[in-house]
Structures are given as C-alpha cells and as structure tokens.
C-alpha cells in the first residue's frame, strides 16, 4: 500500500476490516447511493480494529476527503482535514441501521447537507481516542 495512489475519480472511500454481517456493508453503501455520492471499497487490515483510525486513513486517500471505517468494533465517518481523534461520527454498534445512517452522513459531508447523526452520539469506542478533548 503506498499513500498517494488513491482513486482519481471523486469518490468516498469505504474501508472494511474483520468480520461483520454482509447486510451492514450493503446498507452503508445504500446510504451513500441514496444521497447520490459515489464511493469505492478499500480493503482494511486485520491489524486495524479501530474504525476511527481506519476511516481517517482512507479519508486522507479520498479525493473527496471523506472516508468510512467499518470494523467489528464500530463504524466511523471521517474527514481528511479533521484531527485523527475527532471523527465526524462514530458508533460502536455494527448494525444495518447504524450503517445506513453512516452512509448518509458520509455522503452529506461531501454535499454539505446537515448530518443525521444521533441525539446520543457520545458513544466512545473503547480506548480508541474517539473521545473529544
């Protein structure tokens, strides 16, 4: 993997690592599609269990500067210009419902539409620096 050889097309990058139900990834992609924003999949590595770090890594490679990280420990949306520890959104629940919302929000960061988020969005992914300081 060499940084800088990212896609030239304007896409949100979605990286998935580890195991999770297939419908989760499907709903994540559906959220992006419903908002009309293209995306590409990127492989995650098994040594990247933190969705926030994963999202940030691919966000920095994305021409649109937006990345989504999906691991067993949660789903995160990140922007390449944001500090690594401060994702746009992160949720420790790996469910179809959360995935759909994250897909929408990743697309909305690109299109400049207010985010769906959740009212109680202070879920911190254990020890992964998702907390705000």
């Amino acid at each position, binding site marked *: 993997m060499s940084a800088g050889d990212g896609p030239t097309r304007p896409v949100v990058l979605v990286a998935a690592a580890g195991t999770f139900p297939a419908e989760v990834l499907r709903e994540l992609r*559906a959220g992006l599609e419903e908002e009309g924003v293209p995306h590409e999949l990127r492989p995650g590595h098994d040594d990247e269990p933190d969705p926030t770090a994963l999202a940030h890594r691919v966000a920095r490679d994305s021409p649109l500067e937006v990345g989504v990280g999906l691991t067993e420990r949660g789903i995160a949306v990140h922007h390449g*210009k*944001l500090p690594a520890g401060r994702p746009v*959104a992160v949720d420790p629940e790996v469910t179809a419902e959360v995935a759909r919302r994250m897909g929408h929000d990743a697309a*909305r*960061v690109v299109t*400049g*539409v207010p*985010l769906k988020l959740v009212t109680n969005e202070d879920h911190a992914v254990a020890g992964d620096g998702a907390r705000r300081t």
Partner: protein
Amino acid sequence: MASGAPRLVVGVDIGNSTTEACCARFDDDGGVEYLGSGLAPTTGIKGTPDNAEGVRKAAGQALADGGCRWPEVDLVLTNEATPVISGLAMETITETVVTESTMIGHDPRTPGGSGIGVGTTVALADLADRPAGEYVLVVVPAAEDFEDVAEALVAAAHRGVGVRGAILGGDDAVLVANRLEETLPIVDEVTLVDEVPLGMLAAVEVAEPGRTIRTLSNSYGIATLFDLDAEQTKMISPVARSLTGNRSAVVVRTPGGDVTDRRVPAGSIALRGRSSTVSVEVDAGADEIMRALARIRPLVDAEGESGTHVGGMIASVRDAMSELTGQRPDEVAIEDLLAVDTLVPQEVRGGLAKEVAREDAVLLAAMVRTSRGPMEQVAAEVRRVLAEEAQRVLEVEIGGIEAEMAVGGALTTPGSGEPIVVLDLGGGSTDAAHADTDGEVYSVHVAGAGDLVTTLIDAELGLDDQQVAEEVKRYPLAKVESFFHVRHENGTAQFFTEPLAPELFARVVVLTDEGMHAVPGRHDLATLRHARREAKRRVFVVNALRALEQIAPGGVLRQIEFVVLLGGSALDFEIPDMIADAVAPYGIVCGTGNVRGSLGPRNAVASVLVAGHARGRRVSGAA
C-alpha cells in the same frame, strides 16, 4: 435636612421587565459621584410588592459594582411605577383541510427518478395480481427492502403492467430508481404511507434536481390529468396551491374526497374611541385595523365580536391581563392595539406526510395601563427586604414622574438636545416621552415590542420554541460551510483553527454569546434573516412611527429634532439602525442613548432619581 444627611444613595428604576439601579456618593456641596450600576429582571408585575426581590438584586449589583456594602447605604430612591401590561394573541384565519387524504405534497431531500406518472394506486403486495395493460402507481410500506421493491417493479413491467411511479414509506427512492430499467417518478419518506387510499386514480410528479414540479402545482394541470370539470377544478385548486415550490408531489383522486381552503370566520373588532366606535373586519387585514385605530385614537377600549376568533383573542388577552392585575376582565380597558398580518406554516389536516401549508394569521398585541400601583406597599416591602441586607432600617423614598426622568436621563447622552423624544423599546410596550423646549413632558405607550417580535419569528418560521425564536431575534446568523469555516450573513467568511462540531455542519447557526447554536428545521439563512428583520420592522419601526406621530407637536414629525432610544431592545444589533433609517427622512437625529456618556441605553431613570435628589439637597441646603 439635618446633619445626618445621606451620603450613599441608591436609585432604583422598576421597569416592566427590567429593574435598573445605580449608587452614588454625595459630597458636602451636593456634588454627585456615580459609583456603580446594576440590573436585574423585574420580579412580579411592576408596581407590586413582588418587585422588592428584583430591587434587592439590582441594587446589590450596583453596590458591588461601586465597591460599596449595604450597611453604608443611607437612602434608597425609587420611581413611581405605573405598570403597562401587554398581552398577545394569534389566530390563523384560513385553514387547509384535506378530507379522505387527497394529497401528499412534501419535499423529501432525495426523491427518485423524474417526470410525471398517472395510474391506480396498488399496494406492493398486490402488484403481482394486476393484469397487463393496467396503469399503476405502487404504494410501498417503509419496511420493504429497496432491492425487493425494484425487482417487483421490474417484474411487473416485464409482464406488461404499466408501472408509472411509486410512493415509498422509507428513504429509498434513489436506490429503487437506480435499479429500474426506465425512469419513473418516485416519492419517498411518506410517513403515513399505510393510509394512502388504494384503488384510486393518482398522479406522482418528481422534478429534476434544482427544479420544482410544474403539473401538480397547476390547477389546470391536475384538471387535465384527472379530467375534472370547472366545479371540481375549483375544489382542487387549494391542493395545487399548497404544492407550489415542491420538488415532488402525489395527488390522489378520492371520489368523496374534498379539500377546502376554509376561511375561518374571523369576526370583527369594535374599537371604541372617546366619541365614536368603529368596527373593522379582521379579514380586512392588519393595515385596515391600524387605519381604523388611527382614526378614533385615543382608544378607550376594544371588543371582539363574540363567537368569532377575534372575540376569543380579545377575551384571552383580557383574561391574561385580569389575572396579572387582579382586576375583573370587564374592568380591563385595552388602550392600544397593534395588529400584524403574518403567514404561519400549519400542518395540513388530513395530510399524509406532515405536509405544511402557509395560512394567513393575524397577531394582536394589546396594552393596558392599569391604575397606579399601591406604591406605599411597594416601598414598605422594599424597606423590609433591604433591612435584611443592611441589618438596619433603610430610608426608602418614592419620587419623580417616570417619563420626565427618562427624558432627563436620555439628555445626559452626549450630543443630544431639546426638543427630544425618548423611545423606550421594552418587552411588552414601546413607550415615548417628549419634552418640549419649556421642559413640559408628555408620554405615550403603544402596544407591541420585543416579546411580539419573538412571537412573530416563532410563528412564521414554525419553530414552536420561544427560546430558539429569542436567539434568532437576538443574534446574527451564519452558515457553517465546512468543519473549519462559517459564512456570516453579510457574506464574510471566518476560519476556525479548532474544528466545528459535526452537529453544526452545514447548519444555519445563531452566534450567541455562548457560541454557535444550530437553528432547528430546514430554513435557509436568507429565509431566517428575512423573517427576523421583517418581524422587527413590523413591530419596532411601525411602533416608533406610531408613537412619534402621537407625541410630536401637532403630529408633525419634523418638529422633533432628537430621538434617543433606551431600553433592552435599544441594545439590539439592528433595531436602532432600522428606526434611524425610518425617521431620517424627517430630519431627526436618532440613535441609541448613552446615559451619562458611559452606560448605553441603560440606567436613565435611576440616574436621574439620584441626580434629582442631589439638586433637591442643594436647594434645601441653600434655604
């Protein structure tokens, strides 16, 4: 006065919404040195013993500000407090009622496909049973998966069923549209999709991105699709009207269905002057009411026609005031009214997707000037409360005519001069006092001020939250354009090194003293700003002119040279400019006051109370 003459004096002005105080030290020659000032919300109704707590707070602040302590205080001076109480009522005078659910006209962010489709509404579950050649619109519950839906639509089309469009419960329109072989209009996020009548002729329209629908927002467009006659077209016209400006819509033709654009009998209002009474239909609009009021001024009382909306409005204002003052409702005399026309978003009764129609409404602000409060009781309570603070009995004196003192205080504004008018922009009423060159002071109170502006903003934007409306009124707006910058309402951009919260992303925010707060809802910045400025103009500019006309010598505004704005709303970031612009053509110098050259539009009366006492001392000292 004797040798134990007061040395530390506190002046307190009990206002309708704010109590202001200042403290000052007198030297032996009667010279005054102002030490500090303070302000607190008025507790209870102005002119009642409940005010004592507010006095304690405001005076305590003034002392702390001046580095003084309660035991040092020799005398407390307070004003004559004549309460001006105001009430507000709003009624919508039109109402859109949809019976048997005839339309769905909402704006999901992401409808699918485009074009217009006409067919019979069919549930997704029954689609497989429909014969070839039939034109259908498919109604899909929220729980259905987008791939299954797309497959079912494609399969039906292959069988020869004319699938012309779809109505979805979930947010899946684009997903379904992307999986079809032809472009069909699809509307989604229809909350009450289960209540869409089935087996009825219906039309779905979706416009291209950035466009609005053209057929279903046109009465004749609907008539053409559904083959309506003139009478039926009349009935459908409110539907077309309420769909205007949407990107997508559904209209279902239900045989017994009916949409009415009902005008609620608003009734008439009788304005009683000293010599005559004029009756105005509220339907005629706020301008007509205000013109009638100007004809019969001064208003003695106002009555609403019983059994009508306006009757209810006036009664509710009266009840609220009688509750506040302890007077019987029929003893409450309304001395001024301000009527404002407004458009209020209201959920359409019988709609399926929380559709909103803008209905005409009239807002009324009424004002009552009650009999002078029992000031001796107020003074006694103030004395009792302050004795707790000072640990001894304090002398509390009442004195001075409020309007005169307001003028006196305003005149301490550098650059002001006579003939002067003081405009006190308060919460409930806008008060004006005029001093002619002989020092004679006249005053007038007109209904409507800051509270009415908040109510107007709240109603027009459909916020349904007074606190949010208050913030929209009080602070400038900005649009958060990225995680690192906002664009202010005047177009300038501001960069932040610390990323902005995701909750604020792409939102319109109010720039409060405690940071940015997102404004709920989907209003854009231009709409919010327009509603805010219009509300201020229709209340404060209208009232400033109304008050000045009533108080100017011979009603001629050119006779006034200086207008000094006082009160809380004189601190607003745009109201003073709006009023100054409105009076500029009359050659009037107008601006926010600066009492004693340093206090802004605050503390005018309290300062004059103290200064007046100083003059009194000099006079008595000389005698």
